[in-house]
């Protein structure tokens, strides 16, 4: 019998580090560009068009008894191949419901933090390595870096009995389409981003707000000038306990310039951020970034992507006792020219300069997240 696996079930499998054998039947270049990866995932790529006349060559490479997931772009070809594998007598055979498209769009909701004043959810977009957050307090909520799947945040707010009042973007995203504007329209919430990012729709400029306060939350806006990444990005410190670090600090290290080509200038700003602002923060502040590169390495014991600032400092020599010129040299040496797929069009959409149908948005976002690759230890 042929079984189906949803993107949510695949995400759970990866988080629990369960064993899975994946037969990816997309063409080789799509596979090389972007695939499902995990510590106990074994991958085999044979394009479906090599299996039209029979699956024998695949069968000889698929271990008997292991859980098998057949994956393709949308679903059709994986079913086509998986059915033949079942007919050949294999068991424990699954196909991915909705294919890599569904994988790209799945958000995994996990709890990060809860005390008397505030509760925080993280939404892990496992297929792309993007993170968004909801900060709840009393009857109100604030959303950080929302994805375009805005229904989910509204559903969570409804279940929790809160109203979304504020939405913030830490920077102008280049790898995915922001849900900020759509979510603000749907909820009536205020949408904040940096004026310097060049958006053309109505928003509140973060330059004019040093704090965003609601119920028992005080969110401090820390401007971090990063001209190498995007013209302006910010981090948010909530109740002196939680640092939503955007693309500035990751669990695996510091952010790096990828789109600007002004590496040394950016590195100088980053130095000031790390040594003047972040160095003043306590070791037990929890860092919650906008991206991650490797789920297995960055998912912590509590099941979310994040780490204590002290631990990140501990592992990252660059954040301790470096002088400015050594710091800049180290950052510049790690410069990288790979950019996220379609980033120019995505940036234009996030600025409100261009519009795109949902189909086009989905197409633009397909693929790996190259912002997340860009940290260095």
């Amino acid at each position, binding site marked *: 019998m042929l079984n189906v696996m949803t993107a949510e079930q695949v995400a759970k499998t990866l988080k629990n580090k369960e064993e899975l054998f994946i037969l990816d039947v997309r*063409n080789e*270049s799509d596979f090389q560009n972007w695939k499902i990866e995990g510590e106990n995932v074994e991958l085999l790529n044979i394009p*479906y*068009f*090599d299996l*039209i*006349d029979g699956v024998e060559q695949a069968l000889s490479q698929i271990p008997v008894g292991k859980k098998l997931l057949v994956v393709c772009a949308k679903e059709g*070809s994986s079913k*086509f191949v998986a059915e033949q594998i079942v007919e050949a007598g294999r068991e424990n055979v699954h196909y991915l419901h909705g294919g890599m498209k569904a994988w790209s769009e799945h958000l995994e909701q996990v709890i990060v933090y809860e005390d008397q004043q505030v509760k925080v959810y993280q939404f892990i977009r496992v297929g792309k390595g993007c993170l968004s957050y909801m900060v709840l307090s009393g009857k109100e909520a604030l959303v950080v870096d929302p994805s375009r799947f805005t229904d989910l945040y509204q559903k969570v707010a409804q279940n929790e009995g809160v109203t979304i009042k504020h939405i913030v973007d830490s920077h102008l995203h280049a790898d995915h389409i922001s849900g900020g504007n759509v979510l603000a329209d749907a909820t009536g919430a205020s949408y904040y981003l940096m004026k310097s990012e060049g958006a053309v729709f109505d928003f509140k400029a973060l330059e004019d707000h040093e704090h965003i306060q609601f119920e028992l939350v005080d969110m401090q806006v820390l401007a971090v000038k990063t001209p190498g990444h995007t013209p302006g990005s910010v981090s948010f410190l909530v109740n002196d306990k939680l640092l939503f670090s955007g693309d500035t600090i990751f669990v695996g290290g510091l952010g790096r310039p990828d789109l600007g080509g002004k590496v040394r200038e950016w590195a100088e700003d980053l130095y000031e951020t790390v040594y003047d602002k972040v160095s003043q923060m306590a070791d037990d502040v929890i860092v919650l970034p906008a991206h991650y590169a490797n789920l297995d390495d960055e998912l912590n014991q509590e099941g979310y992507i994040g780490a204590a600032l002290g631990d990140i400092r501990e592992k990252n020599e660059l954040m301790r006792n470096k002088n400015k010129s050594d710091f800049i040299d180290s950052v510049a040496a790690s410069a990288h020219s790979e950019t996220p797929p379609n980033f120019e069009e995505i940036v234009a959409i996030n600025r409100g300069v261009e519009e795109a149908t949902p189909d086009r948005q989905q*197409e633009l976002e397909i693929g790996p997240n190259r912002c997340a690759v860009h940290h260095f230890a």
Partner: protein
Amino acid sequence: MKSNRIVDAKGLACPMPIVKTNKAINELQTGEILEVHATDKGSRNDMAAWVKTTGNEMVQEQEENGVFKFWIKKGSH
């Protein structure tokens, strides 16, 4: 461009465009041209990769009003 046979795979989702193309090309002689019409966006990359692994040749391809057209010359295998 002249073709010996046309496969209409418009409106069909993956894997059908390639399945039909594969079947049709098996019935052609070496050097003959198969023309394929498809609307599935994935068929562009897939068709190019399929042609390579099967030893056929993509002679021409174009897009017209959302329809992808391919002209494939059967190789000698």
